């Protein structure tokens, strides 16, 4: 991957997002500061309605903040027009939606190849990379299936393959393990972890502590604010001593 480890891929500075106005307005995010480096895997946890999906949507350029700045590889998203934003999303940002968002009239492999094709990669090459991404998430056999021929868990993995295809430097995943059994869920964590180890910045929204534990850093969000962060200690001796052994 072309990105250097440690380089800042995502930055949110004093980001606020308010929906509606007046008495019924909802502050989904308030004064959020967050940076994610290349090679870093960050998990976001928080109660339902705390602003996790809003945080991801803003980071991926799917939504605009009410105030504050969002930078992807130092580019302020506010400076990008809709076309440029769409291009950035196809090239640099992989997004796994809570509800998959796959195109029903395309096969699984075509869905996965779509962002590359839209960006001008020749169809053959895009398809080859799609098969590769599908191998990585463990669904090589689903290439020619349509959405209505797959289970929720299978569709979810297609969505993940689509998010990691190409050289995505920022991967955003909103509860990608929701429809998966625990073994498959762990497989998804392995894929996200390996993307981060290869240099991508990864942000995962999850309510499962077991999955969040794969991240380098866990960010806790509540009522639209980041209230805490946890980073691993990587000191097994101390940790086992603390476990009472």
């Amino acid at each position, binding site marked *: 991957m072309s990105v250097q480890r440690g380089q800042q891929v995502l930055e949110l500075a004093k980001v606020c997002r308010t929906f509606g106005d007046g008495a019924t307005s909802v502050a989904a995010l308030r004064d959020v500061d967050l940076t994610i480096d290349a090679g870093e895997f960050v998990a976001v946890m928080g109660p339902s309605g705390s602003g996790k999906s809003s945080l991801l949507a803003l980071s991926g350029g799917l939504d605009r903040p009410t105030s504050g700045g969002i930078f992807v590889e130092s580019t302020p998203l506010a400076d990008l027009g809709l076309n440029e934003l769409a291009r950035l999303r196809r090239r640099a940002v992989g997004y796994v939606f809570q509800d998959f968002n796959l195109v029903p009239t395309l096969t699984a492999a075509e869905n996965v190849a779509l962002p590359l094709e839209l960006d001008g990669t020749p169809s053959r090459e895009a398809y080859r990379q799609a098969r590769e991404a599908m191998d990585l998430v463990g669904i090589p056999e689903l290439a020619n299936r349509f959405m209505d021929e797959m289970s929720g868990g299978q569709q979810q993995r297609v969505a993940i393959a689509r998010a990691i295809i190409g050289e995505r430097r920022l991967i955003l995943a909103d509860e990608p393990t929701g429809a998966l059994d625990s073994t498959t869920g762990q497989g998804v964590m392995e894929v996200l972890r390996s993307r981060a180890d290869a240099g991508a910045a990864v942000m995962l929204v999850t309510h499962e502590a077991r999955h*969040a*534990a794969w991240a*380098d850093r*866990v960010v*806790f969000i509540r009522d639209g604010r980041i209230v805490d962060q946890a980073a691993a200690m990587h000191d097994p001796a101390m940790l086992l001593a603390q476990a009472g052994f």
Partner: protein
Amino acid sequence: MSIRHSLLALLQDQPRYGYQLRVEFESRTGATWPLNIGQVYTTLDRLERDGLVQNDGDDGEGHVIYSITPEGSLAVRSWFDAPVERNNPPRNELAIKLALAVTLPGVDVAAIIQAQRVASIRALQDYTKVRRDTAANQRPADTAWLLVLDSLIFQTEAEVRWLDLCEARMVQQAEAAKSQSARQQSTGVTSEEVRRAEARR
């Protein structure tokens, strides 16, 4: 954790001396429970006193060899047969702490829960990392260690889920209390009056 039974189980395998028992125990459990050599000798003394092991004397290199007796084998057998008693590991300090916290005025229970959640997730991150590294270059001897790690991961995960539940309960209670006081305000009845009315019933 029963050092007594663990040492017996190792002697069931073959006769050994104190230091060997310690090394063997640590390698089989992935050094999860560092055993103090003094503990090993005291335990061997007691086992000998109780007739569960016998002292076979010096091996010629200054090591005192112990072997298991028939009574000892029986004890190992019943240890493996019986489930571990529930109250054995968890004198659950966290549960006790939270139970006290919710009953004491002026204690910020939400903050206690969140601090604990951060600590638990951090531990979970570490276990997961160690597990990932171990599994990535797994040697046959790591099987037992991976089992121990899995157990720690499941326990910690359960702890986090339990914390989530505690928090949800508190939110529910707070909301119930709020709507109750709102109801009372809207009827113009104070909570003191409600209490007195209830006491009269």
